[in-house]
């Protein structure tokens, strides 16, 4: 493996980091704690896979799949509960 490529990658990573910081500085988003279940669902449930429509699972199934996703996607307990409650009203 060539050392030069390592440095180029390192440089790109550092550059990427600053882009992220710049973007997050400009973004005016509401606090996560103040977001509704529907909003949190939109924020979190479409980044890895297509959004799974609420009607595809029953209330009882969303309670189980919700916890499964909490562990997969590193959601907080509050976020998970709000999303599950939203899915139970929307299915």
């Amino acid at each position, binding site marked *: *493996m060539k050392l030069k490529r390592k440095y180029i990658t390192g440089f790109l990573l550092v550059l990427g980091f600053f882009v992220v910081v710049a*973007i997050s500085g400009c973004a005016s988003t509401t606090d996560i704690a103040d977001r509704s279940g529907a909003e949190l669902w939109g*924020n979190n449930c479409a*980044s890895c*896979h*297509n959004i799974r429509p609420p009607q595809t699972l029953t209330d009882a199934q969303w309670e*189980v*799949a919700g*916890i499964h996703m909490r*562990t997969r996607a590193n959601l907080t307990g509050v976020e998970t509960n709000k999303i599950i409650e939203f899915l139970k009203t929307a299915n």
Partner: protein
Amino acid sequence: MKRIRFILFSALAILIGSATQNPAQESTDLQSQIQKFQAGTHQFMLAGYAVTSFIKEEGNPSQFESAFMPIFLFKATDKVFFEGELEIEIEDGAQEMNLEYGQILYLFSDYLIFGAGKFLNPTNYFIERLHPAWINKMPDKPLMVHPGTRMLASQHLGFQLRGAVPIKGSKIEYSFFVGMGPVLDPATGEVTFTNYGDNNDNKSIGGRIGFIPIPKFEIGYGFEVAKVGDANTNLESVKAINNVVDFSYAKEIKGLKGGVDLKAQLVWLNIDNPNIAPLIYSNDSFGGYAQISFRPYNSPSEFFQNLEFVYRYDWSDKPNKAPSNEYIKRSGFGINYWLTSSSLFKFAYETSNIDLPNGSTTNEHRFIGQVAFGF
């Protein structure tokens, strides 16, 4: 004759009975019956996916491969959970069944979860979060997590702690684990990541920190350290270190009537050079992938809404002096057609450019057609 009359009478009685029953009463009865069914604190759910692929590699006979992965989920209480996945597959001329993961989870608090068992490697973003065939937009895994060119463990057997902490509008996520760690092959200098019987007392430790500044934008850094040599040999103190960077971003682009999705992961694997023959070279590998996909999900045509275009570049660069030294660079184009939110057809064409240990270069081409269904 008597029997028929009896059946007719019973049917009539049921009809009259149900007609006189108040519909509201009926629905509350039904509700209470359902609630009775749900009242148990244990909840079970079967999830998973199935996938079948057709692979035509230039110069090799074409093949079909198929796999079914049932996922068993149990929720005992609000705090105690189990997830287990079996992987039953027909691949490379053999049929196999493996435990993909099996983990008991204890949800300590809003921000902390403890897990024990065989779990997907938290530093391996692709494997932990994107590998199921109905999620992965290409029909195969990137080289650095694929058998043969793997540089990072897919699973660990041990304990983990994980969670997330929101900070205003952004979020930090973390995972830390202790597991068995990889095992060094003293002849080839390669490490094996499927370690079900440890060769030393040293356990691997590692973790990942992820930062989500805005929704659908995530950047993460992961590391893993382990001694990989056999106990009581002169390779005992040889360490393997993984560094991993991952990136994920999804954005709707109104002008293009659809959404773009970007994913990338870089993996470094550095194994100590013990200077003991045949391991007398710097044993460093580097691999990764970057992928961009676009789906015109707001297009007026239903056909286009379900189409998705993908490009992935991945590579695997093994140590120059190792017997396995190969530098593979691969480009893959894919077109997917979504049938539901979790089932699709994929068609992909991949071209690999390979630098071989003898200094020569070769090209390989392959076509993969796949159908995947997640449930």
